[in-house]
């Protein structure tokens, strides 16, 4: 559990570590996709094959939930979500930059009360291991799914709250609230727990830092891939629930 440098701007608190992490992962995704889509040809080879495999994989997710015509519309959204979360999850396993604070730093929001807990300051970690990032992503998907549902048929959107019986309205409302909450917590908890265990193992004795650390890092890579996939699948399920039914 490290501290993070925070900057106050216009009355809002910005977490510098998360901004660095998000920008770096977004740039890596941009660079990766840019390099993999140069010199496209009808007969794909090498790099183009990799990108086509990824797009096939993601279009499998969207095709599972939506009809063919609809799924093509949401393919780029699902691909962006999947690649960003995958890169963000995997970055935190490999790269972690921490520094030691020798005293309170008011300009970075590190106070003496914080230093009683720990004195290590994190400068680079997985952005998805902070709850603010995942809540923002899940909230955006929540708003987008409702917007897409209203845009498709306003009457059908209102009607699906009282289906199949009118007294099911409270259940539907609880469902709508719990969906983004679990969506965000699922991704955050998995990556956060993995990262904390890596930190604990790293600061332990020699017997901890050897094989257990490498075993847990391998498992973290696996968990990161699975959670990126699940986040995308659930985002598509939530959108399909609003868009799919007439």
């Amino acid at each position, binding site marked *: 559990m490290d501290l993070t440098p925070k900057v106050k701007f216009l009355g809002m608190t910005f977490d510098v570590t998360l901004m660095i992490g998000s920008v770096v992962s977004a740039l890596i995704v941009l660079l990766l996709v840019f390099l993999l889509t140069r010199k496209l040809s009808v007969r794909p080879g090498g790099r183009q094959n990799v990108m086509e495999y990824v797009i096939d994989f993601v279009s499998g997710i969207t095709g599972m939930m939506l009809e063919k015509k609809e799924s093509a519309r949401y393919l780029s959204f699902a691909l962006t979500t999947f690649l960003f979360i995958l890169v963000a999850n995997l970055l935190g396993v490999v790269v972690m930059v921490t520094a030691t604070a020798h005293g309170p730093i008011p300009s970075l929001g590190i106070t003496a009360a914080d230093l009683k*807990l720990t004195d290590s300051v994190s400068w680079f970690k997985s952005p998805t291991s902070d709850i603010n990032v995942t809540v923002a992503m899940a909230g955006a998907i929540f708003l987008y799914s409702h917007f897409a549902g209203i845009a498709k048929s306003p009457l059908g959107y209102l009607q699906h709250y009282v289906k199949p019986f009118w007294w099911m309205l409270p259940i539907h409302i609880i469902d709508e609230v719990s969906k983004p909450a679990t969506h965000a*917590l*699922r991704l955050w908890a998995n990556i*956060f727990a993995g990262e904390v265990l890596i930190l604990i193992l790293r600061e332990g004795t020699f017997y901890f830092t050897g094989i257990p650390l490498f075993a847990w890092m391998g498992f973290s890579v696996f968990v990161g891939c*699975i959670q990126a996939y699940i986040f995308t699948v659930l985002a598509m399920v939530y959108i399909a629930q609003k868009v799919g039914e007439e």
Partner: protein
Amino acid sequence: MSLAVLAGGIMIAFGALAAGIGNGVLFSRYLEGIARQPEAQGTLFGQSMIALGLVEALPVISIAFGILVLFGII
């Protein structure tokens, strides 16, 4: 020793217990499935991994909050 340490320990312990039971049920059914139909192993593996991610989330949420309580963040 403060009570927060005990609370965090209990949260992590029950999370681990629940994850153990859930994953045990999941993978025992997966093994039963491939014992009955060995040719379905490929599809069943992918499906069981998705189910693993869905099942494991709730215990891991409890463990993450347990860690926060244990270190005195909340």
